[in-house]
């Protein structure tokens, strides 16, 4: 199969952009001229790059906690009458000389950036019932500011919060009052547009992307429960009125009776110079069986460049053909200007659960570094039609090796050989081995590779830093009759807790298990997590180090093992990488040049959000939302902690 690129409408002349092209969105600069942290990824180009200069590799060891804020919005889910467990990964915004943060209980807090004192708070009074995710999740806020504010009028600066029940609340950024001119009294319900295959309500975990005077809203759902589900869609609404400007459907409408999702559940990025919106589009439903959806769906598991004014696709690039592994494109493409043969090429880099990196010309979607269409195993279950080839980038080097790293002798010995016995019964033919009824070893698996934070770019050197996990999982398709017997009498949550996913309407249910021994040890060789640095001009690896530490029963495993990570790095102009992400509930500063850890601090749970970095009243702050994530540890918190130099 040749490289699938859906539409190549135009190939504009390459614009010689500045090396570190700047966002020109109102609000992207603080009142003192310093950099604001005004989107989930810091900037609309998703570079996660901080221009602050006070904290350097030489003095980062002196960082101390400046203040902490606790909202009280946290739940371990243990009270059967209380809310479900919280999963808080909300990077705060520093904008309008205020630090804004949202919580899993759907409240907004506006804080003094230097003290953490509350300026105002806003409660959406959302019922703490999770309709889709099994947990209460929130990943932050969006901000819009009028380019031509009207004096004395409210809502010239607006903070937006998306909720698990699919509502977007618009709140005046100065007063904390609802912007009643937005949609219905300040609340937009995107489920009014959930009219096709509406098996469940749409949830908003990731904050909408704001550009010019529009909000671009993706959503999350449950692509594991049914075969036919709401088709993926992105909504563009007016930032002040909430009026729908356009809607993009990611699945051809004639396929709606067969499938669904291919939604955008992660954040998006924007090329403000070339007026392009970039969407990471996830896999179609059901996740692990595609025999009933064999038609071309070029936007599924793809990167799409979209005209933000019209919603028309400029180009798209499919990173997995006929996805039956749940390899969602899961993070905003990071935009940068690549220097190649004396020319500046507008580029993007897309990380993936596969550990692959796709470096594309962001105006055309053409690969800049080689991506082969490589033959892959095709022996799927009865009814499946496995894609014979898959895109296979060779540069930059993947963070996850092509071959399974082998069974850990320690885990095997501790389980009296159970790891080896399990492995011997699994089907494994390398990357893209199709799911099977006997059980397929998926490596890399849906747990990643690189998760939704993505990587960070230093645009002055085109250094790319990314954290990645090495996780082996077992994919087992279960014929429908057998699945029904196994899961008789269990509700969805009980099934999910045991790794069972119904895929109702498909001939197979599914079981997903991580390859652990009975003590909970990974059966495969580490490291389980790494931090890597690449030179994006050449695609070469600068360094790769094990990152983080696994903690089990309180015991810290050797640093050389690394940790599975969720969360992303931020790079500062001075050459410091700040990152939480690790299972051991520590946040770290790492030297950009060498990859060596320079500073650590213990926090109350894994910090799965990237930090926000800003300078306020002459001091640089690094602020983490520490909330935990059940994928890493059953630890939750409501800690917002700011670090600064003495």
């Amino acid at each position, binding site marked *: 199969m040749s490289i699938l690129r859906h539409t190549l409408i135009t190939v504009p002349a390459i614009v010689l952009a500045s090396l570190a092209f700047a966002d020109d969105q109102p609000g992207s600069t603080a009142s003192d001229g310093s950099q604001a942290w005004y989107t989930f990824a810091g900037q609309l180009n998703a570079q996660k790059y901080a221009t602050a200069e006070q904290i350097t590799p030489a003095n980062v060891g002196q960082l101390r906690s400046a203040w902490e804020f606790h909202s009280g919005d946290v739940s371990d889910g243990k009270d059967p009458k209380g809310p479900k467990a919280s999963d808080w990964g909300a990077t705060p915004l520093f904008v309008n000389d205020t630090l804004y943060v949202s919580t899993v209980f759907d409240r907004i807090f506006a804080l003094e950036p230097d003290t953490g004192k509350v300026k105002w708070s806003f409660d959406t009074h959302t019922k703490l019932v999770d309709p889709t995710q099994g947990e209460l999740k929130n990943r932050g806020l969006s901000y819009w500011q009028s380019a031509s504010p009207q004096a004395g009028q409210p809502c010239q600066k607006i903070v937006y919060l998306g909720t698990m029940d699919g509502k977007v609340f618009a709140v005046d950024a100065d007063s904390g009052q609802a912007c009643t001119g937005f949609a219905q009294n300040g609340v937009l319900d995107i489920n009014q547009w959930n009219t096709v295959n509406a098996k469940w309500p749409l949830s908003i975990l990731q904050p909408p992307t704001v550009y010019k005077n529009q909000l671009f809203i993706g959503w999350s759902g449950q692509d594991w429960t049914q075969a036919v589900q709401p088709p993926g869609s992105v909504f563009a609404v007016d930032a002040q009125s909430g009026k729908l400007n356009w809607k993009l459907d990611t699945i051809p409408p004639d396929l709606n009776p067969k499938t669904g999702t291919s939604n955008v559940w992660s954040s998006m990025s924007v090329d403000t110079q070339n007026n392009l919106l970039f969407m990471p589009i996830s896999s179609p439903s059901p996740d692990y069986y595609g025999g009933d959806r064999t038609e071309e769906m070029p936007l599924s598991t793809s990167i799409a460049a979209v005209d933000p004014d019209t919603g028309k696709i400029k180009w798209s690039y499919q990173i997995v053909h006929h996805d039956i592994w749940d390899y969602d494109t899961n993070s905003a493409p990071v935009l940068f200007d690549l220097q190649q043969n004396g020319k500046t090429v507008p580029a993007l880099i897309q990380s993936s659960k596969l550990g692959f990196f796709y470096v594309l010309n962001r105006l055309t979607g053409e690969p800049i570094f080689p991506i082969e269409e490589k033959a892959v195993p095709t022996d799927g279950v009865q009814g499946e039609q496995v894609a014979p080839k898959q895109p296979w980038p060779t540069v930059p080097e993947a963070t996850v090796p092509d071959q399974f790293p082998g069974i850990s002798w320690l885990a095997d010995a501790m389980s009296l050989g159970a790891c080896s016995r399990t492995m011997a019964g699994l089907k494994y033919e390398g990357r893209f081995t199709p799911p099977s009824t006997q059980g397929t070893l998926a490596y890399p698996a849906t747990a990643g590779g690189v998760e939704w934070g993505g990587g960070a770019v230093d645009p002055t050197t085109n250094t790319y830093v990314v954290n990645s996990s090495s996780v082996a999982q077992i994919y087992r398709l279960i014929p429908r009759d057998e699945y029904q017997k196994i899961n008789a009498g269990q509700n969805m949550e009980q099934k999910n807790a045991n790794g069972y996913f119904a895929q109702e309407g498909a001939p197979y249910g599914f079981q997903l298990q991580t390859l652990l021994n009975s003590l909970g040890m990974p059966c495969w060789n580490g490291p389980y997590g790494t931090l890597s640095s690449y030179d994006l001009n050449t695609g070469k690896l600068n360094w790769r180090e094990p990152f983080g530490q696994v*903690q089990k*029963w*309180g*015991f*810290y*495993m050797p640093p050389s093992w690394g940790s599975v990570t969720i969360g992303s790095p931020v790079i500062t102009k001075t050459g410091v990488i700040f990152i939480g992400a690790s299972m*051991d*509930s*520590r946040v770290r500063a790492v030297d950009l040049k060498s990859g060596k850890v320079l500073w650590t601090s*213990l926090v109350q749970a894994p910090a799965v959000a990237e930090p926000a970095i800003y300078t306020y009243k002459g001091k640089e702050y690094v602020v983490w939302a520490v909330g935990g994530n059940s994928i890493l540890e059953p630890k939750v918190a409501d800690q917002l902690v700011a670090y600064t130099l003495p």
Partner: protein
Amino acid sequence: MTINASGRSLTIPWGAVVLISVLAFADALFNYFWTGNGIHGTEGALLVVVSTLLMAVAAWLTGAHIVHGWLRTLLVALLVLDFIGTGLAAYLLEAWILLALDIAATVAWFATLAAPRMTSTAS
């Protein structure tokens, strides 16, 4: 030279082993309950609470010659295992004070081997 503990005499090295073990137990307890570390409330932190308590008791029973014969030999062997196990656990828990105390207790125990043998002065 001996010191007296609860009517039983201990050589200084044995007294040091007991004292350091008690300090290690206190530190392990502190680690278990203090929420400012990364190990509070964990199974590993509880394990070293138990192991340091057993260390202190075994050191006292052995050093004060409360037990004799095969039981004493067994306790000495278990004490050595306790030093090793607690040290390994403290290392993996990154409980550096506990590790230092464990090493100190081990050094003190080696000193008991060098000290002149004495009979119990228990009455």
